[in-house]
């Protein structure tokens, strides 16, 4: 069955430090992959997406993600974290194939220390 795993429930980093959030998926074909961010009390905002081509994709707010087919991973990175990046981050796989459905990971909550 298709699944998305975000192994880290909580991550704490210091402001200015680098960040990597992990996402692994289980899906037979090359999926469409997304990262979303959710600030407290808000909906989800799209950070970036991958569907083909260059495996390193750039997103908004200085984020990037790398698709690694051999590892079934799509990790999110940022070289220098800002306090405003504190939020919950969700990885999602689109398994449309006629079903129009996303599978979401359970999220990683990021805390940023001043």
């Amino acid at each position, binding site marked *: 069955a298709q699944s998305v795993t975000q192994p880290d429930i909580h991550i704490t980093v210091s402001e200015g430090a680098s960040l990597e959030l992990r996402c692994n998926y289980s899906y037979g074909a090359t999926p469409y992959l997304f990262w979303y961010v959710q600030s407290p009390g808000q*909906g989800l905002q799209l950070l970036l997406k991958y569907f083909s081509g260059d495996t390193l994709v750039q997103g908004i707010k200085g984020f990037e993600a790398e698709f690694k087919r051999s590892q079934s991973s799509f990790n999110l990175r940022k070289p220098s974290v800002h306090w405003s990046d504190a939020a919950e981050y969700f990885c999602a796989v689109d398994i449309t194939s006629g079903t129009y459905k996303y599978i979401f990971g359970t999220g990683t909550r990021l805390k940023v220390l001043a």
Partner: protein
Amino acid sequence: DVKVTQSSRYLVKRTGEKVFLECVQDMDHENMFWYRQDPGLGLRLIYFSYDVKMKEKGDIPEGYSVSREKKERFSLILESASTNQTSMYLCASRRTGEGNQPQHFGDGTRLSIL
């Protein structure tokens, strides 16, 4: 910019009541979705609609129904609210087509059932 508007940010209802959650999108998207979000469980799909008057059950449809009479509006109905339906509800919309079309989310409705 895509705008997905959920009618209420916070809602308090009593058990047994019939509850309506409304969602409107302004980008003529064909697909619309209702999710509930609970801590540790991520987002779970309740229902989705791929066109007017069309609907499909998601992963947790029990206790819910939906209505899509107009393209821009997708309503979630709790037929007889129960305390285990206390949750954050998120609506999303998406243009139909290949899986690289992202879902756009509203700000959510935090529903409490007393």
